[in-house]
């Protein structure tokens, strides 16, 4: 049973009722087809109403859903022959970021993404998808490798943020993130980033200096978590819901602000309801992006990234 989120409670209840009726029909030999049909129609309307008018906070809940597909799921669903490559060749292998080479539509591609766990045990191993510097340095190593061999890079962003810890500071968390931003700016191959869950601040951006940035409809991307913002701005983390609205962190909001290139639609209720269908939606978007970007020369790709980020920022003068 998939975990239900508060805002979709009415849908779930109605669904349960329909199931109940169906079962009853079978057992009691009473024909209730008409009633069921009616209810199903109502369900459809209700789903539309709820899922097409999701509040920012609802989307945050979906983005954080424990069953939401992760980088690994998309790798399995979209690519073939994936070979995972480990380690930054400097200090360690950070399980919070995975990467490697695979074939996409039969052509080689480098994939890098944040990876959280699906249960507590795996989450401890993967540090809840919050990378240390070695994770970012591994990512950079794989990007440079992709550049050497002229492979496009696809990054999946899904992190609450870079890990705020003692060891991370000692090994230069800031430098690792900063280095990625600068180096990604100069990559001679196409780079595409897709936010698939939470895009938490610098820890997300370190995989995000891309030619195209896409976001799943119910993913978020922001400078800080809603809870963090609420406690800094209003000294009260319980005001996270208001913060989520104020901060403009959802995919539709970011598209409106021209921060991202596209919103990838999600299956009703969120990607966790049908990860295979979700992967198909993503596949078309990735192919389109690659088609467009593979026409550009190395110089054009770098300029494209330059112009994209140069143009972000609002002010008067």
């Amino acid at each position, binding site marked *: 049973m998939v975990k239900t989120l508060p805002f979709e409670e009415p849908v779930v209840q109605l669904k349960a009722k329909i199931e109940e009726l169906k079962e009853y029909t079978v057992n009691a030999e009473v024909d209730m087809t008409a009633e069921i049909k009616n209810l199903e129609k109502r369900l459809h309307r209700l789903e539309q109403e709820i899922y097409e008018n999701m509040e920012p906070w609802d989307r945050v809940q979906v983005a954080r859903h424990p069953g939401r597909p992760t980088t690994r799921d998309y790798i399995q669903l979209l690519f073939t*022959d994936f*070979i*995972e490559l*480990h*380690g930054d060749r400097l200090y360690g292998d950070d399980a919070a970021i995975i990467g490697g080479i695979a074939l996409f539509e039969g052509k*080689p591609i480098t994939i890098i993404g944040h990876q959280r766990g699906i249960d507590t045990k795996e989450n401890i191993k993967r540090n809840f998808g919050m990378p240390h510097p070695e994770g970012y340095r591994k990512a950079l190593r794989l990007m440079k490798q992709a550049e*050497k*061999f*002229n492979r496009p890079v696809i990054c999946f962003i899904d992190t609450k943020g870079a890990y705020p810890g003692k060891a991370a500071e000692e090994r230069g968390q800031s430098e690792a993130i900063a280095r990625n931003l600068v180096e990604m700016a100069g990559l001679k191959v196409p780079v595409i980033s897709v936010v698939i869950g939470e895009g938490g601040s610098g820890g997300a951006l370190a995989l995000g200096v891309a030619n195209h940035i896409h976001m799943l409809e119910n993913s978020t991307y922001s400078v800080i978590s809603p809870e963090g913002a609420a406690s800094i701005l209003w000294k009260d983390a319980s005001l996270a819901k208001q913060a989520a609205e104020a901060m403009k962190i959802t995919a539709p909001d970011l598209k409106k602000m021209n921060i991202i290139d596209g919103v990838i639609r999600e299956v009703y209720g969120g990607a966790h309801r049908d990860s295979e269908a979700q992967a198909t939606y993503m596949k078309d978007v990735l192919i389109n992006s690659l088609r467009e970007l*593979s026409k550009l020369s190395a110089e054009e790709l770098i300029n494209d990234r330059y112009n994209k980020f140069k143009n972000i920022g609002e002010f008067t003068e």
Partner: protein
Amino acid sequence: MIRDIFRKNQKKKYATIPTEKAKNDVPEGIMMKCPECRKNVFTKDLMKNLKVCPTCDHHMKMTAHERVEIFLDENTFESMDDHLETVNPLNFPSYTEKIKSDAKKTGLNEAVLTGTGQLERQRVVVAIMDSHFRMGSMGSVVGEKITRAIEKATELQVPFIIFTASGGARMQEGVLSLMQMAKTSVALRRHSDHGLLYISILTHPTTGGVSASFASVGDINIAEPKALIGFAGRRVIEQTVREKLPEDFQTAEFLMDHGQLDAVIHRKDMREKVATLVQMHMSKEVSTW
């Protein structure tokens, strides 16, 4: 006393303790003993299992020729530079004799076998070190053979693949050995500047000057399970830092955890995985979608 003879659980006054030599004694030919779990295995079964112990999965040492056999497409290997001969530049006593005896034992001119071949019909240049020859140590000829192999790969514009197995630089050739580390590196740099793929496969053991040069700088570094890989020897480190090192110290798995390896791959999967990697690096252009 007569009674003593019938007493139960009596302690034996004398015991037969097998000597170290007897313990390690491997029956010639038909059976082989796994050096790890000490189980006996039929040699025939062991060869079928690629010299991996069927009981404990220990990856035993392989000769360079055996490696060619299991790694490359059948009958595609052509060896290079078999004519190079080791000399005794520092006049080390009995060095020449040792080289001669190892050459006879292994059928190699030095501790590495190099050549061209095909991997799943893709042309590659390979270098395979053999630890049965002077512990796979690197002197002038090993350095020269590897360098020429790298240059061949650059010339043919194909990937270079090495299987390392070495105790390190060869002491008997002194600083000449040390400089082979730099020599192989300058050749690798040129190969890399052509945008070509270099895969380093570290097998047991890869240490010292070899681990501190070409073995560690593959575009992709792979190791066989449990292979010993490190710079300084365990005993040296323990004596220097004066502490006991962890059990898995300097194993392939330890190195992967510490960021030095891309993957640890079982011998039975090596050919297929490396072939796939080579396949993924065949085109030099960005593909069009």
